[in-house]
């Protein structure tokens, strides 16, 4: 009885509440509108952002390609082969990896009384990466007169918009590849710093010609430590003169004195010369053997060198023996070459 009464009341309320039903329909529409608005706005904005980002990426790629163009145009000749006519011959080297298309060649000619310019549009001038191609173009520049002297300048325009100057000189030689310092040795030599002293010439002088009449001769070189740590020079370091049939040796010494009878302070491995990183040092070579105070070229010429008046050319070689401060037990050696010298009468 109660259940039937409840159903009847509910049916009556629903019939009477028609505004409530239309509110539900209205709410559904409102949700629909909001959902359509939000989703379409979101998706469209996203797609436009994608378009914009793609454009930025494309622009960056374009700029990158423009900057990557690397072309040398050199070995250029200009020949005025008729009135108003000039032939421009050049060589194009594409050093870069991108292929480069040239669209236009511009040329400018001038002398004291004349200035003129013109361009020629090029077709099919496409240079692959690493390729070298010759280019010869006949151009018209109004006012040029055959037989007159002109100063020319020209430049090429690439399809990407770069301007490439056309050089007259040949392209510069590529830089030689340097071997790593650990391969070549840590020391470099001041090439023109082979000097010597002698009893009658105790001030270091350039060792180009050394008279055989000199006595108590010592050699000097200036070396630079290019390594990143200090190096200790060993007493077995020497200079050798390569003269016909003879190779007199001059070992490193610690010091010299030319007062009275010249003397040598022998080199002591217990108190070595230490050359700091990126520092230069003048080393002296004069001893007959390692770590001794005996002159190699003292009161007489080194053994085997004749005292005659015939000049003798000598090749100078240095063996520099050293240890690194961080590895004192491991010995390295480096050969350094000089200019040659002459032992004169």
């Amino acid at each position: 009885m109660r259940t039937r009464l409840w159903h009847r009341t509910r049916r009556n309320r629903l019939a009477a509440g028609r505004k409530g039903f239309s509110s539900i329909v209205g709410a559904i529409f409102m949700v629909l509108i909001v959902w359509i608005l939000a989703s379409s706005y979101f998706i469209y904005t996203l797609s436009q952002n994608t378009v914009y980002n793609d454009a930025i990426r494309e622009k960056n790629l374009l700029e990158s390609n423009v900057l990557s163009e690397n072309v040398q145009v050199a070995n250029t000749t200009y020949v005025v082969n008729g009135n108003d006519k000039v032939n421009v011959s050049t060589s194009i080297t594409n050093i870069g990896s991108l292929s480069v298309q040239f669209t236009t060649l511009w040329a400018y000619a001038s002398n004291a009384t004349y200035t003129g310019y013109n361009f020629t549009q090029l077709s099919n001038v496409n240079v692959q990466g690493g390729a070298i191609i010759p280019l010869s173009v006949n151009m018209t520049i109004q006012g040029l007169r055959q037989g007159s002297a002109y100063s020319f300048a020209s430049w090429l325009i690439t399809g990407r918009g770069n301007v490439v100057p056309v050089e007259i000189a040949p392209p510069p030689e590529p830089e030689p590849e340097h071997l790593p310092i650990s391969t070549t040795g840590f020391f470099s030599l001041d090439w023109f710093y082979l000097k010597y002293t002698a009893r009658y010439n105790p001030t270091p002088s350039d060792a180009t010609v050394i008279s055989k009449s000199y006595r108590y001769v010592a050699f000097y070189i200036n070396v630079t430590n290019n390594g990143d740590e200090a190096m200790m020079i060993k007493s077995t370091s020497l200079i050798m003169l390569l003269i016909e049939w003879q190779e007199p040796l001059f070992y490193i010494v610690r010091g010299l004195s030319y007062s009275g009878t010249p003397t040598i302070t022998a080199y002591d491995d217990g108190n070595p010369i230490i050359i700091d990183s990126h520092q230069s040092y003048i080393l002296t070579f004069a001893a007959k053997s390692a770590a001794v105070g005996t002159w190699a070229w003292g009161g007489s010429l080194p053994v085997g060198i004749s005292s005659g008046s015939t000049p003798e050319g000598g090749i100078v070689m240095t063996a520099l023996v050293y240890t690194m401060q961080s590895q004192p037990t491991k010995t390295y050696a480096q050969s350094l070459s000089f200019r040659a010298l002459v032992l004169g009468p």
Partner: protein
Amino acid sequence: MKSTKNLRFFKNKHAVSAVISNIILVAAVITIGFAAIAWTYSQSSAYMAQYGESVQSDVDKLRERVSFEYVFYNNTAKSLSVYLMNSGKVGDVNFTTVYISNSSWIVTFTSVQLKFLNGASTPDLDMGQEGYFALGSVTLQSGNAYTVKVVTWRGSSFENTFVA
């Protein structure tokens, strides 16, 4: 008994009007709802079209690139010839304003007649095309450096320094 029931149904005018008004109310809500959706859709479409145009305009501006090939000043004729190339990725590049300046002086040109390199007039340059414009009555000091700046109708500007 049955005839009494039928008689009562036909006499109940109140119930019939409730159903009709309910249908009318729901129909009105649906109609207004669809109208609102249509209006919203048209508004959002217009907005999206406007936004799309704006984005496309920005994208085209990004793709614009102009390279200067040569700037020649004729000291006798007092004219300046500026040779350019559209090296960008969008066509229809023309120039609305050109500025010639140095550190203490500037002159503006708003009417620029663009031509192809063969001398034929053109309203704009497409991708890869080369052209030039000539400016008359320009007095520059020979040997001095000047800057030429061009502004496209999309609003991009490109400049180049030259020696007169």
